[in-house]
């Protein structure tokens, strides 16, 4: 451990702990998930980077949204995302999450995921290779270091807008808003 690392640990231990133990939600949202099993098993071994799949959303802080998102899946994604404790990071996986990819004209897939939930980073390509996942993870470390992986803060701040967008596509949602706007503003003011 070099001096730089050590200073970071002394200054912000929780941040470093979050950074090096990314627990990913075990949720196969799209076809990008085909490269996740090789990544987490022996050959590519994502545990070197501290990425481990976790059974429940309550224990996870990384959400890999692997590929296209159909309307029905969007509901499940929002539900899962809102159940994750803060701080939480989302990575859009493959071109489908960026602009719809090859399903740009499909009647059942939403095109831009960041209209509905905040995204901290994207991995381009179809399929992104396991190496690309590791590049994304190391990049996410840098973002966390610089406090730029602030998707969950943006979600809190602009919750009303996100919720409005979600309701535009999903219609009636069967769970109440997780933040009242005033509460969200208060938390944002307190924690920045």
């Amino acid at each position, binding site marked *: 451990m070099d001096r730089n690392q050590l200073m970071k640990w002394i200054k912000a231990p929780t941040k470093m702990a979050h950074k090096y133990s990314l627990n990913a939600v075990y949720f196969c949202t799209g076809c990008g998930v085909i490269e996740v099993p090789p990544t987490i098993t022996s050959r590519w071994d994502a545990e070197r980077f501290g990425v481990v799949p976790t059974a429940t959303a309550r224990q996870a802080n990384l959400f890999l949204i692997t590929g296209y998102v*159909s309307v*029905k899946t969007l509901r499940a994604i929002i539900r899962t995302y809102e159940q994750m404790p803060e701080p939480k990071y989302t990575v859009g996986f493959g071109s489908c999450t960026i602009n719809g990819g090859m399903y740009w004209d499909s009647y*059942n897939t939403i*095109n831009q995921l960041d*209209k509905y939930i905040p995204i901290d980073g994207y991995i381009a390509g179809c399929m992104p290779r396991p190496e690309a996942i590791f590049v994304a993870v190391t990049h996410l470390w840098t973002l966390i270091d610089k406090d730029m992986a602030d998707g969950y803060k*943006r979600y809190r701040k602009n919750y009303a*807008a996100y919720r409005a967008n979600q309701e*535009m*596509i*999903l219609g009636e949602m069967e769970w109440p808003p997780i933040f009242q706007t005033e509460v969200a503003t208060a938390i944002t003011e307190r924690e920045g």
Partner: protein
Amino acid sequence: MTNPLGTRLDATFKGVELRSGVDGRLAVVVPREAIVPVLTFLKEDGYDYLQLISCVDWIDRGEFELVYLLSFYTEDEVGRDGGKQEVLLKATVPREQASAPTATGVFAIAEPHEREIHELYGIHFEGHPRLTPLFLDRDYEIPPFRKDFDTKQYVADVFDRVPPIDEEG
């Protein structure tokens, strides 16, 4: 057509039209009411495997074509000329007020197939045990697989209208 099965079908049912099907298959066109009796007849004749129920939208003719593809399970190592062929059963349904009798009584596997066609083409199957939505979450004015449903227009109207989040505001 000199096909033993074709001859028997012709003798048993009225209004059955035989066509030389694709690559050695027998294509049978039947009126809508005869779907279930002909399917039952074919099943008893050894065609015990309903491979798929498909639907083709011929919008110029103003009708849907339901296609039932029947085959049989075999353990013999024979090709298609082993005495029996596959059968393509077709029936047309008008596009307005589209409905057809259900085949679930004859083949259990018809259930999800018909549910899918009901959802994607809007054809009602009379007597089907559960015609609930299978794949779709949203309601579509025109069932999406019909030819007059324009996916690009729909995407422009629905998904592209959702505004991006204004992070600064």
